[in-house]
């Protein structure tokens, strides 16, 4: 490789912007650079870097087929939060539902980000608007949701009866209350503890 070609190579590499042949030439004491540019273009063809001309100016760039290397994807696996899981379940069982309806069913407010997360995950989509005052956005599940959860269709979701049979509808509070009663019995004779236990029963 002759010195001029080396110089052109180095100048293009270190330049802060694409250079026209004239600018290059000025940099290199007026040398004719066309031949060097042609040589370099040929030399870099098929490599990881290529020399290209855009709008009359030359610059090095990463080979287009390797552009994906410059942006590495890194996957973070994160567990869906409790709130998001609940929202997703409500959408799955009741779709299409509006945000207000989800909140009504959950009994708590649903943060804006929660639905965003579900849509980002690809499990929930906007399914239009409900034709009621305010025209709220309504949400539904996607085919990706069915695929992820291994469901043929939404009909595969267990019904209320099945949930009950699986013990999933047993109120947690019942278990709690029976525990409290046991405790009250254990402390029988102690008036304060006894009354405390009773109060708890009532609150629950």
């Amino acid at each position, binding site marked *: 490789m002759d010195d001029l070609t080396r110089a052109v190579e*180095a100048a293009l*590499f*270190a*330049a*802060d912007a694409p250079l026209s042949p004239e600018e290059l030439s000025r940099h290199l004491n007026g040398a004719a650079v066309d031949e060097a540019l042609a040589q370099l273009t040929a030399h870099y063809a098929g490599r990881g870097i290529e020399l290209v001309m855009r709008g009359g100016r030359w610059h090095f760039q*990463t080979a287009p087929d390797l552009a994906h*290397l*410059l*942006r*590495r*994807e*890194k*996957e*973070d*696996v*994160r*567990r*869906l939060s*409790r709130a*998001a*899981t*609940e929202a*997703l*379940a*409500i959408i*799955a*069982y009741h779709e299409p539902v509006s945000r207000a309806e989800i909140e009504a*069913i*959950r*009994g708590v407010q649903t943060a804006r980000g929660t639905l965003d*997360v579900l849509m*980002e*995950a690809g*499990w929930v989509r906007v399914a239009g608007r409900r034709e009621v005052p305010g025209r709220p956005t309504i949400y539904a599940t996607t085919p990706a949701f069915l695929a992820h*959860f*291994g*469901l043929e269709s939404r009909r595969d*979701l*267990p019904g*209320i009866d099945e*949930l009950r049979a*699986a013990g*999933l*509808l*047993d*109120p*947690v509070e019942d278990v709690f209350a029976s525990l409290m009663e046991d405790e009250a019995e254990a402390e029988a*004779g*102690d*008036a304060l503890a*006894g*009354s405390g236990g*009773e109060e708890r*029963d*009532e609150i629950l």
Partner: protein
Amino acid sequence: MPPVSAALILPEADPAWEAPPATQRKDEALHLELEGWEGPLDLLLDLARRQKVDLRTISILDLVDQYLGFIEQAQTLRLELAADYLVMAAWLAYLKSLLLLPRDPEQQPSPEELALKLQLRLQRLGAMREAGARLMARDRLGRDVFARLSPEGLRTDRHVTWQCDLFGLIEAYGQIKVRTAPVVHMVRERPVMTLEAAIARIAVMLGAAVEWTDLASFLPPRGTSLAQDPRLARSALASSFVAALELAKQGRAEIAQEACFGPLLLRKARG
């Protein structure tokens, strides 16, 4: 700048200084280089270097002479001298006198030792100045060699994959159903003494109590079935207290308490 290797390669032992430079050159150097001098060692080193002599072979005595000569001349030229120079000059003058005067064997450390230490320090500083100069003369990135000025940069896009399984989903739904199911409150029957019962009971018992009587003695006596249930006992106490207040309000009883948390005393109203 002398050859880079001057301080690094052992030369043939050079017995002495070269002849001192011409006065005219000295003046020139003085004016030109004064700004570069930072302190005593620096100046000594510079003096040593201008002799083009290896630091290991210089005579400290000659060096001291030159240093003191420089200080003297600088003073006649009315140059401002840093305190460091003068302290060093005083120390060197002392060192010189030690080297010239008859030896005192008790002297610790000996003047030779002091001179040796000075020599060692000068050598080390000299070596570092050489090294610094050689570093600065290298092909430096951004001055002699260049990296790309505005590279595209490598980016790492973080992509979150959310995890949730079917059981988690169904369980969550079950929880919602349970949580939001209509709640029916059931109040269990419990043994109580009603206010009416307490008023009736106290009103009857009060008829016999002319003197102050503790409220406690109006309660069903311990040992009775009534008092065996602690919850009923508490209910009886509360109801009896309210009954006493009610009776007092109606003007049928008087209440007194002699101390905070003392026993509540009750008697039939007089008149």
